[in-house]
Structure formats: C-alpha cells, structure tokens
C-alpha cells in the first residue's frame, strides 16, 4: 500500500499516496515522508533506530533468536527463509538498548518487510525481553509497532505471545517502568489487542492503519458503511485510544520529553549510569 515503486536507477521514488515523484535522496532525507502530501511511508527497523537513538548509542541484542516451524505448517519454512533473504533479518523485530538525548531506553522496533511484521514466538520473546530489560536496567521501554498481527503459521503459540508480552507489560506497570508504544503503519490485530494497547503512553504516526481485524473481516462482520478514516490512527485517536499523533520528524523529541518526564523517578536507581556513560556506546 505505502511501499513506493522505484523508477529508473533508484534515483527517483514515487509517493504511494499522491503519486508525486521525488528524488530518492531527498525522499530518504525527509525520512520517507512525502514532502508534497505528508504521507509517511514505511521505513526499515534499522532506519528507525538511526533516527530515534543518539548516534552510535544502539546496541542490538537477542540477535541469536530465529523462528522454527514447530507446527510443520505448510510453506512456512519457505516464507521465512524468503523473508530472511529479502530483509537480512532473522525475524520481524529488532531489539536492544540505546539512548535518546542521553537517556537510556530499552527498544524494540518492528520491521513490516519481514512477513508483515507478524508476531510469532520470536517476536513475542523479543518484545517480552525488551520490557524485561526495562525492568532490569530501570529504564523506559519503547516499542515501535508495524505489524499485521499474530503469525498464523505458529498457531496457538502465536496467540500465547499476546499473553506473554502483556504479562511483561504488567510487570513493568507494577515496577513503575515507563512503557511507551508507537503505532506505525500498520498496527493491527493480535499485537494491537495485546502489548501495544496497554502502554502507558501511545503515540502514532499520521495515517497509520490501526485496527483489530482486517477491513475484509470487518466487512464480513456486517460493517457495511465504514467511515473514511476507519482503522486509521486518526480514527483511533478520536476514539480515545491514542495519546498523540506525532509526525515522524518530531517523534524523537516527543519520546525524549516523555522519557524524561515519566522516567524521572528512575534516574537515581540507575547507579550513576547516565553521568558516566552518557551518549557513549556501552
């Protein structure tokens, strides 16, 4: 939907929304946001980390985790290997520790290009560990969502990731660890119905698709006349589900403010970490 078609030698990129053609380098510099219509095109986990964390502050973790095929589900192995080859990732989420304006955060970033950002055992485990690292390191946890929902091919194991991740969020709640979730395009189904919706603060990029069931399913469920903005971030915001819609360029500063405001009580507990290693890669 918002995946831009490339023209020529990759020197030009067409906006998926308004069809305007941009110089590829300008488009990338503008964080893949169309300078003409403001459409936020999807970005990779790697790029997201670059524009969110202080330079060289991100340390990736959990890199050894990859999915199996526990159910021997038809075609799953092929799809997974294909996604690995295409993206260079082992699953749909990249996790680690980074800093935002000097403040340590535990970070998870979904990459939609890996099997639609779907949540199987590995994604569930990595989000859980991200929240647990917040608990352990006494720092806020931030999760960027970009997902169609649970990964069918792991059957009930995927459904259980909804519970597992929500349990980790509950432990963060109890331990007063701030947990911020950012909905990007799309944030759907099993992910929306679990850890994503129980964050302390929920931000969203403009026009991101946000919803419980695919539009097709909703229509089957008797939704004949849906509003134009149905299942958008704006729809969810208007119905009280999102704190703030923030443009991509402003996300880092908003996150930085929130980390400082909600994480103030944690600074003493971080054993002088901020002073000694501020801004430096661990």
């Amino acid at each position: 939907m918002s995946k831009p078609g490339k023209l020529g030698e990759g020197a030009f990129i067409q906006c998926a929304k308004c069809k305007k053609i941009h110089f590829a380098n300008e488009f990338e510099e503008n964080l893949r946001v169309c300078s003409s219509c403001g459409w936020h095109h999807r970005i990779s986990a790697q790029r997201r980390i670059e524009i969110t964390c202080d330079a060289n502050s991100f340390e990736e973790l959990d890199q050894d985790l990859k999915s199996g095929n526990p159910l021997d589900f038809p075609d799953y192995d092929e799809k997974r290997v294909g996604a690995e080859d295409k993206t260079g990732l082992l699953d749909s989420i990249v996790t680690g520790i980074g800093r935002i304006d000097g403040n340590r955060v535990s970070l998870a970033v979904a990459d939609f290009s890996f099997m639609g950002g779907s949540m199987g055992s590995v994604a569930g485990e990595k989000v859980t560990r991200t929240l647990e690292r917040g608990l352990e390191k006494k720092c806020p946890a931030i999760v960027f969502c970009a997902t169609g929902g649970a990964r069918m091919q792991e059957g009930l194991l995927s459904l259980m990731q909804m519970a597992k991740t929500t349990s980790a969020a509950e432990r963060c709640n109890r331990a007063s660890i701030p947990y911020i979730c950012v909905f990007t395009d799309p944030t759907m189904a099993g992910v929306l119905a679990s850890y994503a919706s129980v964050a302390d603060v929920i931000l969203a990029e403009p026009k991101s698709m946000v919803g419980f069931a695919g539009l097709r399913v909703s229509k089957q469920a008797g939704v004949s006349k849906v509003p134009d903005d149905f299942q958008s971030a704006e729809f969810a915001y208007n119905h009280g589900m999102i704190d703030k819609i923030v443009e991509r360029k402003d996300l880092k500063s908003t996150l930085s403010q929130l980390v400082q405001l909600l994480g103030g009580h944690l600074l003493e507990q971080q054993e002088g970490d901020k002073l000694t290693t501020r801004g430096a890669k661990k």
Partner: protein
Amino acid sequence: MANAVPRTLDEWEKPLRDLEDGITKLKAVAVKEKDDSRAADLKYRIQELQRRHDNYLEVMYSQLGPWEKVLVARAPNRPYMLDYVNQVFEGFVELQGDRRYGQDHAIIGGPAKLNGSPVMVVGHQKGRTIQERQLRNFGYARPEGYRKAIRLFELAQRFSMPVVTLVDTPGADAGLEAESRGISEAIAASMLKMFSLTVPIISVIIGEGGSGGAIGIAIANRVLMFEHSIYSVIAPEGCAAILWRKPEMGPQAAEALKVTAESVLSFQLIDQIIPEPTGGAHRDPASAAQSLKVSLLSNLAELSSLSGPELLNDRANRFRNLGVMAIH
C-alpha cells in the same frame, strides 16, 4: 467415517442418526407386536442396533480429527457456560454492566459458590434460540464484555475469591462499533488485569477458544480444555481464506493450525484435558459438568497452597516461556 469432508455436525453424525431412526421405528413396531416370538426377535434386533449405534459412537468420538473437533466444539447443543454454571456452582448472581457504556451479553459473570466457597465465574455465553443468539451476539463479545470482566476480576481480587473463566467464543466482535470503542484495548486490558490478580485463576476452554476473543479472559494459573474443544489463533476458515484464499479449506487449516486439545497440550500451552462422556459433552451434559467440577476442585485445591504473590508469579511464569524458537 464418511469420505467427503463433513461441513456440519449434522452431516457428520448422519450415520448415527440413521441408526437412531432405525431403532425408533423398530420400537414403534415392537410396542404393537402381540406375538411373543416376533416380539423377542424385535427386541433382539433393537438391542443389536443399539449395540452397533453405541459402538459406532464410541469409535467415531475416539478418532475425532481436528475438523470434526471443530464441528463438535461448535455443536449448537453443546453445553454452554450457563449450563455448567447451573450444574457446577450454587447461587450464581449475575452482575452486569461495564460502568462505562453498555451491556454485553456474550461475556457474562458474577459470584457463585463452588462446594460452598465463593468464586467469581466469568465466561462467554452463546445462545440457543434465534433471539438469544442475537442477544448474545453469537458469542462475539464486545468491548463492554471485557470491561465488565475487568470489573468482576477486581471484585474477585477485593473479596479474595478465586476466579473461574469459561471460554467459548468464535472470536471477539470485529465490527465498526466494537472497533470504535476499542475492542483491542479491552482485550489487552483484560489480560493485563488477570496478570495482576493475587487470587487463583482457572480458565477452561469449554467449546470454541477463538483467538484474541478467547485469550482475553484465559489468563490463568491453570488452563484446562474439554476433550473436544478447540483453541486457535484464528478461525480455520479465516486462516484458509487468508493463506489460500479458499475459506472452504477450513478442514485443512484446522489440521495445519493444530487446534485440538491434544495438540495444544503437546506444546504445553494448556495444563490438562477434561475428558468428555462418550459421544461428547452434548450427549451427557450432567456428566461433563461433573468432570468439570472435579477438575476445578482438584486444581483449586492444588493452588490453595500458594500465597497471593506466589499465584501472581506462578501465572506470569506459566506464560513466560510459551513459544518455540530456534537459535541461530
């Protein structure tokens, strides 16, 4: 077993019904038969048919495939939540309302006594008549249902009552109205609340354990499944529609998704299977209720040795390690 894949329970149970019809007819004849010898012969033939029927029933139900389990789990005469509530618990008082927006009749609940001790029962209720099905939204709970459940969980916590949830839903309501009032948030918040309780929780999949709508009230120290219930990340038909663009390939999807109690237990996603009477819970609801009661009591007894914080940690730990991964 029939060669073609049955689409409904009726279709699949047709051989049984044929035998039952035969027995009924013979009995009608036998009642009028005056001749002793012919009466004895009829009696023998009835017994014979009954024996074949019982045999057939036992064989059929001991070899249920995943799709047949789907059909049985959805059987319209399968016991529903209130059937169990009436037979297993005493003095149930239904408490209603989410204190926010409205009523939901697909998830209901309230306090009751189990063997004389108060517990909080919450579960999905489907309807049998057309009117009741509509009232119950065909078991698809709305946000208000989960928010009511949260209220009841809070009452259980406040008054130190163990929680029993009975799960039986094709899934949560995915319509425009449910979406606009935050069905996703409601499910997530319900799970979050259940993880925060320091009272014992037991969840039982009694029929259909459908997706997020099911797990929204299935966060427990012990998760049990009736023998012929199913538990799945997605309805088989939905899975088939997405993967193969063929909703009619539900039977294949049911197989691939591994939705049966046995499969789910093999991945240690549930703790115990509650056996059903021969021919399924719908053929002997009283006996199924008795099995449920025995199972609830023994599991609650085991959990009673744990303190509040231990119960909380036990529940978190139970779910913490679910998942199967490879290491790179």
